[in-house]
């Protein structure tokens, strides 16, 4: 069992937790992920390592409450434990001094982009960061991102904070600017955002790394459920990734595979909500 040592609410739907897991913390690096299973009945879900503390043996996870598992996780508190926590999985980000780089975080993707931006900055890069979300309530870590970036652009779809635009707009402007050569772009966020980021950088031939969020089960290369179609064949996101050259990804295949279990995800959520209502009714009835 792995104990929750800290919990923070970052936005309406985004939560942060520090989990006690020394076996993961000892080796964890930016870009890697863990597989989490809440309890005996739980599914195995992948979450990025947002931060880590080797001395304390803790891993920070940040998750968006989307469906049954993440909502259930969000209801746990400091002192509670989760059943499984395996990792660190996948390859770490390749950090080097590339020159001027752009780090893009969309929605909950701001969390995993942060340690990458920080490491790139420490490696000597000039770091431009662009973070975006649907609206102000969904944004977080603006201050932390600013602290590790030479320049930070904040966007919201509805204009409730920062610039009213998608992240691809400022990205395009940076790419157009001939004075500043961009040598590499990282993008983490919803698949659809990453797709459009790669479409934006493609004409400028700027290397673009994305972190793919396919559906996973084991996370160790055993099932092939996480496979993604690249230009040169299929690869497993959990062992070959999670970061890939975004220009080689077959995005439409990825998007369709992500939605394959939509009906079942809805059913799981309804079942969970029903169970919670029952439990509430029982505990209130007992009062």
């Amino acid at each position, binding site marked *: 069992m792995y104990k929750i040592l800290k919990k923070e609410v970052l936005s309406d739907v985004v939560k942060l937790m520090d989990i006690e897991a020394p*076996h*993961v913390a*000892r*080796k964890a690096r930016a870009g890697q992920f863990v597989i989490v*299973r809440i309890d005996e*009945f*739980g*599914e*195995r879900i992948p979450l990025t390592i947002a931060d880590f503390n080797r001395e304390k043996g803790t891993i920070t996870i940040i998750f968006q409450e989307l469906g*049954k*598992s993440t909502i259930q996780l969000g209801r746990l508190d400091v002192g509670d434990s989760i*059943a*499984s*926590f*395996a*990792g*660190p*999985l996948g390859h770490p980000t390749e950090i080097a001094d590339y020159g001027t780089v752009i780090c893009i975080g969309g929605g909950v993707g701001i969390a995993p982009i942060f340690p990458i931006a920080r490491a790139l900055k420490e490696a000597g890069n000039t770091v431009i960061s662009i973070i975006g979300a649907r609206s102000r309530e969904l944004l977080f870590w603006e201050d932390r991102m600013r602290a590790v970036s030479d320049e930070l652009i904040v966007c919201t779809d509805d204009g409730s904070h920062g610039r009213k635009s998608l992240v691809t707009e400022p990205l395009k402007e940076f790419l157009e600017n001939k004075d500043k050569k961009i040598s590499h772009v990282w993008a983490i966020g919803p698949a659809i955002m990453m797709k459009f980021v790669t479409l934006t950088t493609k004409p400028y031939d700027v290397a673009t790394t994305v972190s793919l969020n396919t559906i996973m*089960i*084991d996370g*160790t*290369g*055993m*099932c*092939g*459920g996480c*496979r993604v*179609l690249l230009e040169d064949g*299929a690869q497993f996101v959990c*062992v070959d990734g999670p970061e890939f050259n975004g220009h080689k990804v*077959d995005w*439409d*295949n990825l998007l*369709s*595979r992500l939605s*394959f*279990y939509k009906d*079942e*995800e809805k*059913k*799981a959520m309804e*079942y*969970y909500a029903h169970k919670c209502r029952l439990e509430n009714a029982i505990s209130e009835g007992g009062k």
Partner: protein
Amino acid sequence: MTELKAAERMKIKRHDMPHQDHVLRRGNYSEVALGYSEETAKAEAERCLQCKDPKCTQGCPVGVMIPQFIKALREGDMVKAVEWMKVKNNLPAVCGRVCPQEVQCEGSCILAKKGEAVAIGRLERFVGDYELAHRTCPLVKAPDTGKKVAVVGSGPSGLTCAVDLARDGHKVTLYESLHGPGGVLIYGIPEFRLPKAVVHGEISYAVECLGIDVKTDHVIGRSFTLDELLAENDAVFLGTGAGLPSFMRIPGINLNGVMSANEFLTRVNLMKAYQFPNYDTPVRIGKKVAVIGAGNVAMDAVRCSKRLLSLQTEQSGGGPGEANIVYRRSRDEVPARQEEVLHAEEEGVIFNFLTNPIEIIGNEKRAVTGLKCMKMQLGEPDKSGRRQPEPIEGSEFVMEVDTVIMALGTSPNPIVFVDAVGLERTKHGTAVADTATGRTKKKRVWAGGDVVTGAATVISAMGAGKRAAADINAFLKGEADWQ
């Protein structure tokens, strides 16, 4: 009881195993084969001729003392039967259920040549189940040697090795990347063939008796590297299996509805998708399933499919659906255990022999709608004596299906080899290790089971774990050098 004569023993017919009704069982996950009663077990044990040179034992990969345990069993001395069994086999309740007996012990039994072999597997299961219930043969730990061993992987090979080394008095830590120990016994072989309670029962008993430290969620190669384990232990055993699935190189493998058998079976068995939504992990099966391949894995996948289809019909109506095996060779070449093929047939699985898939067809939503196949015929025998299947020209046809499960064999998962300098591997990805001792090319590292042989059997993996444990023990006691 008066001793029977050999001729009399040979007149007794082999005893059938009671089974769950084949129509009923399509809709549930309970065990299919129900096991002998004490009376039937004893009666079956009477058939054994107690050969002086027992061929059965030679046919068993670990050399189980078969005539000895059968004799004790028919004399009603169950305690002794268990003792004989446990000399060579720690997990009789498992092996009795899943060994391909017809090509191992029973295939070699002298009676097999004259008619029907003694039902060794069923008797073994009876003895194993007796031990599970009564625990007459407690595992005893020798005095602490002060030596530490790390065992990686908790499948049959790792478990056997860990148990034997802990009995020898070494401090054993068992590392497993999944959330529970057992390997294929837990994530691959379904409940209706090997109840998980049997596996959990055996593992927790051994762990408690022997104080083995089980560390789940530990992916070796990631959480710790092999060299890090070597720094903290006197020896390391790798029993990481062959869990990496292969996909056919045909168009359409990335369509929605195409899965590896590993994904399908992991969802169903390890994650209990057949109890969705009570358990969180779903599995989508559609109405018509094609499982490609005809090994044990394919049989398990197709029989799970059949059950899921029945559950679906029960819960939301609709037709019974269709579960197909698609295999490019003929019935005679089917590699699965006979019993599984028989059970699959009884349960209504459709077998398409001499049929080779060439393309998976999808619709505009990228979901599977069909499997394009060619009919095959068997050609001349090749060097190995096996008749190779050849496509029949112009025989293409499309099977209407919405799920395609690939059960095409697996190879070792490479994660454990990350940064493992000096550990040699073959071009098939298997670890190079000595068959007799399990020694790899890296000092103080042993390996055994599927990671060395490629996908094989439970009992051969256990045998490898046992041989390695013996050599590790000798090495740790200073009785054997590492040259």
